[in-house]
């Protein structure tokens, strides 16, 4: 295999590249709604039970999906358990070939899959294309990682004994995925589990079943045994049933803190007959802040902060929701940020000329509006784009300041286009403020002083700190991604430690001395 390289995104500054995407959407449109069946092993179940709709035009149905039941959950786990030994015994190289094959299939469908995300999740074009590329990256990266891992680490050897260490897959892995990276995140968790030799039951978010189907199709077409990758479109009760199932070994979850913590609690149970402790990998919420030092270059900081907070309407776990500005630069920063927020263009995701698409669903819209109201009463709104389309789940991107330290706007993960600016007297004070937050996913720093960069690097608890750039858009292999504290348990996706969570290490020590003779 060639060394890993990130899949290049489309060069959307070129008109022909943009046309490719627009044409792909035109071709997809008449095929909607797509049918997403429940897929358990070789069984193809119903594909009518619920619908995914276009957040920008809620009357438009993007997919109809089968609604998996708790019985389906049990059947899928059984199929996965049955498929496990053969998949495990294939060896890392053969499994890597399947993953690389699936990557190739996604690559050949990338335009169509980006168009699908534009419709199903209102992802703007650049983001949608990036998501498909990230999915391809995960497949390619974990394929190589699994091959590397199979060799095991070297151990200290002394005469008369032989020490070896190897990694074995754990068994059945449940993947519970979010809608905000509808292809990349399910692909990341699924491909890691599969590459390491586990079998997988995938429960995608109910908002984005069609993107998940594309992944399962690609894996199966590339040679993954049907039992090794089942698809259970559906709602929370299916996820809960999967998490409870005693035959499940690993649960890989990305989503809200509430659900993540519930999974941690529920999977801690070891009922009679369950011969193992479940392993949970959970990527949860964030409340990400950007620190702006007095020497920051605002020409760089303002566009980067706006991008971090408002691209995809703030619906990335890495998105910025707080800015901690040094008082020496706070006024200038606020003025420029508010001007920049006032000119944001809110509109449909399929239009290249927008900055902020709708949020995913009505609940999300209502939540954002609630926080904007709190922002207005707790503090002072200094920037807002109130011109938003009437239909669809649009919200006004909002910039707020002068909030009291205990305001919910500064504390809660809003997961929407709302950004709060706070004033600090020093960088140490900014670090103190972050120290008090239970979240530690991403963070940003704008400073041109090497000492400040070193100090914030030392003090910040966040999983991913970005210095003098936007804080979203982690790339596989370049920015292994994941949070600390209550933002996540588990290790960085797209990094060299990730696969270790899906395997158990086994060490064998053999005595090679027999009657004083070393028999190697």
């Amino acid at each position, binding site marked *: 295999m060639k060394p890993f*390289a*990130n*899949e*290049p*995104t489309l*060069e*959307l*500054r070129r*008109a022909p590249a*943009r046309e490719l995407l627009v044409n792909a959407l035109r071709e997809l449109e008449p095929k909607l709604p797509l049918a997403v069946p429940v897929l358990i092993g070789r069984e193809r179940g119903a594909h009518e039970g619920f619908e995914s709709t276009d957040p920008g035009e809620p009357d438009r149905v993007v997919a109809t999906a089968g609604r998996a039941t708790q019985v389906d959950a049990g059947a899928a786990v059984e199929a996965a358990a049955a498929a496990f030994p053969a998949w495990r015994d294939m060896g890392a190289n053969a499994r890597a070939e399947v993953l690389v094959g699936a990557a190739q299939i996604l690559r050949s469908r990338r335009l169509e899959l980006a168009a699908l995300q534009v419709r199903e999740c209102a992802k703007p*074009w*650049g983001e949608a294309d990036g998501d498909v590329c990230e999915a391809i990256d995960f497949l390619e990266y974990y394929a190589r990682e699994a091959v590397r891992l199979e060799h095991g680490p070297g151990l200290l050897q002394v005469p008369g004994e032989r020490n070896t260490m190897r990694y074995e897959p754990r068994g059945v892995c449940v993947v519970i995925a979010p809608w905000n990276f509808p292809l990349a995140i399910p692909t990341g968790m699924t491909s890691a589990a599969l590459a390491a030799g586990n079998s997988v039951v995938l429960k995608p978010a109910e908002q984005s079943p069609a993107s998940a189907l594309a992944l399962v199709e690609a894996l199966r077409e590339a040679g993954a045994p049907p039992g090794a990758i089942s698809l259970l479109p559906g709602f929370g009760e299916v996820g809960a049933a999967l998490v409870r199932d005693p035959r499940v070994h690993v649960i890989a979850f990305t989503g809200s803190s509430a659900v993540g913590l519930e999974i941690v609690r529920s999977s801690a149970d070891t009922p009679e007959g369950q011969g193992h402790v479940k392993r949970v990998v959970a990527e949860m919420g964030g409340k990400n802040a950007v620190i702006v030092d*007095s*020497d*920051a*270059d*605002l*020409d760089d900081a*303002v*566009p980067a902060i*706006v991008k971090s907070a408002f691209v995809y309407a703030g619906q990335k776990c890495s998105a910025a929701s707080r800015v901690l500005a040094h008082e*020496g630069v706070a006024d200038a920063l606020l*003025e*420029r940020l*508010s*001007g*920049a927020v*006032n*000119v944001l*263009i809110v509109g449909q995701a399929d239009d*290249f*000329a927008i900055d902020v698409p709708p949020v995913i669903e009505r609940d999300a819209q209502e939540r954002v509006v609630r926080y904007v109201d709190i922002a207005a009463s707790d503090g002072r709104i200094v920037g807002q784009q109130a011109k938003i389309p009437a239909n669809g789940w649009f919200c006004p991107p909002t910039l707020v300041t002068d909030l009291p330290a205990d305001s919910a706007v500064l504390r809660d993960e809003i997961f929407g286009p709302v950004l709060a600016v706070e004033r600090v007297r020093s960088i140490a004070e900014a670090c103190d403020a972050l120290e008090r937050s239970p979240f530690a996913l991403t963070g940003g720093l704008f400073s*041109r*002083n*090497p*000492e400040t960069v070193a100090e914030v690097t030392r003090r910040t608890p966040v999983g991913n700190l970005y210095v003098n750039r936007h804080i979203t858009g982690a790339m596989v292999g370049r920015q292994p991604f994941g949070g600390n504290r209550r933002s996540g348990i588990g290790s960085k996706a797209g990094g060299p430690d990730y696969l270790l969570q899906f395997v158990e290490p086994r060490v064998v020590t053999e005595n090679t001395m027999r009657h004083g003779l070393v028999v190697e």
Partner: protein
Amino acid sequence: MSQVEDDPGVEAELGEVGRALYGSFPQRSRNPVKALDARAMELASQDAELRAALFRFVDVTPACRSLDDLARHLSGYLSEVGEKPPPLEVAMRMAGTKPGRAALGVAAAGGVRHMAHRFIVGESPRKALPVLRELWEDGAASSVDLLGEATVTEAEADRYAARCAEALDTIAEAAPRWPERPQLEADSLGPLPRANLSVKVSALTPHIRPDAPALGREDASRRMRPLLRKARDLGAHLHIDMESLDALETTMDLIFELLDEDEFREGPSAGLVLQAYLRESPNQLDSILAWARETPRTPPLVVRLVKGAYWDHEIVEARQHGWDAPVFEVKAECDRNYEQLTRRLLDARPAVRVAVASHNLRSISHAIAYNRHSGGENGDVELQVLRGLGDELAHALAAQGFRVRVYCPVGDLVAGMAYLVRRLLENTSNESFLHEQAMGVPLEELLAAP
């Protein structure tokens, strides 16, 4: 490869032109401060770490709150340099104490200010007028460029447009009082405006989006139209600069669209920029020439041919995204392309006027020789240089009777930093012509075909 390219006549004439220009370069300045500048630049070009430290320092200077803060930044950057030349060891020791930092801060701030003044002609158009007049008297025209912070808000776009309007008024009001300089005031195609302003499309709108060029184009057009009207009414020239590739489609579309509007068919004199480092520049020239032929205007469109100032940015951007580099990565390829574009542009007259903007003696001599060879008068090709980098060259060109224009940035230090750092990068790059010249590369090598 065209025939003319291999024409030994052009090559021979080019050599003569180059040698004559080289002979009229003034002696190295005896000004001690200027020599210090030159030494700092020389150190920087020899050591990548030092170069990075110097640029980071220049870049942060206006954002520092005090001399102490300034000195702390400087020592922070220098501490990352492995082998420090003796003067920098002294600087590091000074940074260890508060009075030392104050002294270091004063010295360093003075150094940056001095460097800035070399490249930036004044804080405002009014304050720049004496320099513009002096240049004119010495036989060089000018184009004023207003430095500014990035435009991220409506207010900033409006402010930049207002500054441009004011600059046009100020320069156009003063220029008629300058003495006559016939060589700068007309070519074979007619009169040339004295007042000349360069504008940046990205500063006229907060909506530059590489993937949605129409957005920025429409918003910038609203602010560009009044400037075109003003330039037309004042008889001034308006030149639309080119920036990074991310703004290229926006900029080109805006120019083609606006200059095609009826009210601008008869003026103002206007121009655009072609960047020879772009691999696609020959195709761009195709569309520029096709447009110019379909859209005849008086006075004709001016095309300024440059190498391009965003080379590092374009390379990094492409590498980070896994895209093919849009620019030539080998200098000789870029130089060859520059000459081919020069020939095509000069051949395309009278559909366009040509301005060759370069500090490369070979490229300039080539343009002059090819112009003569294809029957042009010396005044039929404009030669442009940058203030601070091409001063000596401008002198030599004017002394030899060529039509030369100096690109003159105007603005305060904060606003000028991005510009200044770009120019410093250019000046200390090992492939820079100026660097080669300073390093004493023999003239025949400087004039050799790329």
